[in-house]
């Protein structure tokens, strides 16, 4: 245990926590936007798998990391169009449609990987970019300001999303259609359009999350996410539908993951107990959800399709 509490190990753990939190944060922020508009998307994991695969494949074929990030985003956007048509246009049940998207993403990414790539080959990873001045701060600079651009983007999206929801006209529309779509409709706000755009934004961010995951790891394998997208959905509840709360959840999750990894590396957790330790984050989430569940107000129209007679 003493090995863990050395400054360099703690800094390394914090740095890896932030890195690990990135895909969670991107995906949960996107899901937050969707849910605030009244649309639950359980398919995040499927979206991430697809975008992770396409990003990976792009780097593999072109070596261009930024093209790969763009491809990840566009993949999310494309699945968003599909999900929007299914749930908003056709008013299908969101829970089931989301699971459908997950299975679709899982299956298709697996199939494409086997046909187009076969065996996992490592690719270039996202490079870390030092932020001038800030990265020179002892310890803190190393943990916070020597990260990759997608990580910076994810954390910048926290205030951006908060601002979008609380300060913009479109954010007002999102919140109103998520709470009382009839009222919004009676004032001439298009419920369909608002939800559709919210879905597109959310899925694009899930697409970025998939790209971040695979480009931080530098390798793809079938079912790469291992349920990460579902955790991202849970983090929205954990964060009480607020971007800052969601960020707290993502960081906590990243931290627990990073600590478990570090403890395994240091031998604090024996190899025999490592599978059990892998469950720690999930157990933690469930406990947190139970404690928090009573206090938060979910968007009142969440999962409810809207129709005017």
């Amino acid at each position, binding site marked *: 245990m003493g090995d863990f509490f050395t400054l360099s190990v703690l800094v390394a753990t914090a740095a890896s926590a932030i890195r690990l939190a990135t895909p969670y944060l991107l995906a949960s922020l996107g899901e937050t936007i969707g849910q605030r508009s009244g649309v639950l998307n359980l398919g995040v994991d499927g979206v991430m798998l697809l975008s992770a695969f396409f990003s990976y494949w792009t780097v593999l074929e072109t070596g261009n990391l930024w093209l790969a990030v763009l491809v990840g985003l566009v993949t999310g956007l494309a699945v968003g169009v599909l999900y929007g048509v299914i749930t908003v246009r056709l008013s299908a049940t969101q829970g089931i449609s989301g699971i459908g998207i997950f299975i679709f993403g899982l299956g298709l990414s697996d199939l494409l990987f086997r046909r187009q790539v076969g065996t996992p080959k490592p690719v270039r990873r996202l490079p870390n970019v030092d932020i001038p001045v800030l990265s020179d701060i002892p310890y803190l600079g190393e943990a916070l300001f020597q990260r990759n651009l997608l990580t910076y983007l994810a954390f910048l999206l926290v205030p951006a999303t908060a601002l979008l929801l609380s*300060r*913009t*006209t*479109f*954010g*007002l*529309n999102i*919140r*109103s259609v998520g*709470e*009382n779509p*009839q*009222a*919004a*409709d*009676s*004032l*001439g*706000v298009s419920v369909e359009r608002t939800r559709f755009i919210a879905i597109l934004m959310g899925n694009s961010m899930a697409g970025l999350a998939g790209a971040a995951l695979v480009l931080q790891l530098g390798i793809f394998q079938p079912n790469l996410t291992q349920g990460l997208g579902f955790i991202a959905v849970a983090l929205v509840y954990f964060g009480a539908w607020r971007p800052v709360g969601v960020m707290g959840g993502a960081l906590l999750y990243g931290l627990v993951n990073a600590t478990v990894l570090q403890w395994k590396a240091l031998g604090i957790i024996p190899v025999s107990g490592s599978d059990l330790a892998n469950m720690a984050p999930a157990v933690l989430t469930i406990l947190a959800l139970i404690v928090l569940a009573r206090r938060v*107000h979910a968007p*009142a129209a969440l999962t409810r399709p809207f129709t*005017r*007679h």
Partner: protein
Amino acid sequence: MGSDENILEMRGITKVFPGVVANDNVDLDVRYGEVHTLLGENGAGKSTLVKILFGLYKADEGSILLRGQPIAVGSPSEAIASRIGMIHQHFMLVPTLTVAENVALGMTSSRRPFTDLDAVSRRVSEISEEHGLAVDPSVEVRRLAVGERQRVEIIKALYRDAELLVLDEPTAVLTPGEVDDLFVILRRMADAGRGLIFISHKLREVMSLSDRITVLRNGRVVGGTTPAQTSREELAQMMVGRTVRLTPEKPVLDDGPALLSVENLTVHGDRETVAVDDISFDVRSGEIFGIAGVSGNGQRELAEAIAGLRGVEPGSSIRLDGVDATGDDTRARRDRGLGFIPEERMRDGAIAEFTVSENLVLVDYGSDEFTSRGMLAFGAIGQHSRRLVDEFAVKTPGIDTPTSSLSGGNIQKVILARELSASPTVLLACQPTRGVDIGAAEYIHTRLIEQRSIGTATILISEDLDEVLGLADRIAVMYEGEIVAIVPAEEATRDKVGLLMAGVVDPAPQTNS
């Protein structure tokens, strides 16, 4: 009052829903500066007509002229652009947003893409001041009382500079004082040249506010009049098509045994504050015990505690027919003979998606009559339902119609039919005629008096003073969670009870039986 020029002319409007003609060749015109009332029973087609005007429904036939120009209103935003405003029968507010946000919703902002809530708040304050609509723009709507929410709705319409304003039963949920305030505001708006369409079932209100009245029955216009040319009785007759007794008659009965005893009842409200504060009373067989009070003074919590929907604090006791029922769940209380007509009929009284028939057996579906060997006996259920629909004159296309498509008054009749057909010994009736038309209200009152005659102990919780004064044998007035007085019917007057409701306790000694 009112110029001769029409702001609105609706011509030959027809709208058919599956199984009902909601509007049948309806003509309506509204002048600048007048309050034009639409009157009609539940399901007469009032809401349908104004929803067509507001672009929420599309008429099958007919035309609309606004300020002399033909218009086609395809959606609410087009209606708003044409300066038509609408206060809907059910609030159209987003509870989690502030007043200013609710007002700004759907409007173009001057600081796009950001909202301009400061400017909106300033304008809201101006409108508030100008029209006497006091409300704080920065407060979340869910923290507002019903009367304040209504003001927000009106501000929303004024903010959009509505020149033609439709108010669909705006007073259904207001207290008498709030109604008076509202009418002052509405009158002023009309005097400033706006056209107002007003919908209400309350004849007293209609007589006091309207310039002209159009009466609808079964989707057709059956007549037009003015308050000066008519009376409440005549209006009731036009609406229903027969004579209606506005004040119920009830036989004199001997005192029976107490069937419900409430002792030292203390109940907490939703925010853990004391909502019902140590109250005690008995209700006897053959008695209607009225509970009057401005809404939010603990009546809802009291009713929920008696029904078993809300926990009570230690030391409280509720006895049904002499047996302690304090710890019983709702089912056990029902088995002891408690019938319950809840205030929120769509939430607590019926399941909207279920059919009329399913809602009619919602309590008794498990009895031997309706279930045999674990299977629902559809034959018996159908027969029972058809009998009740006939007996209670529920207006519905059939017993398999989804309850949600009935009008408010008819949903109330379905609940009443279910509760009364179980022959309750104690009946808890909360706002039984809220939003219900004259004919149906008369009917419900008659049934309540019939129950009284056969010995039921009835608790009638109502904000409608006329109703409580007309039906109850004793009237308890609730104020801030306490019963401030119990007044026998002979001594109860509108003024006396009204003062008690406002928390003014009569200095003269009270009869507390």
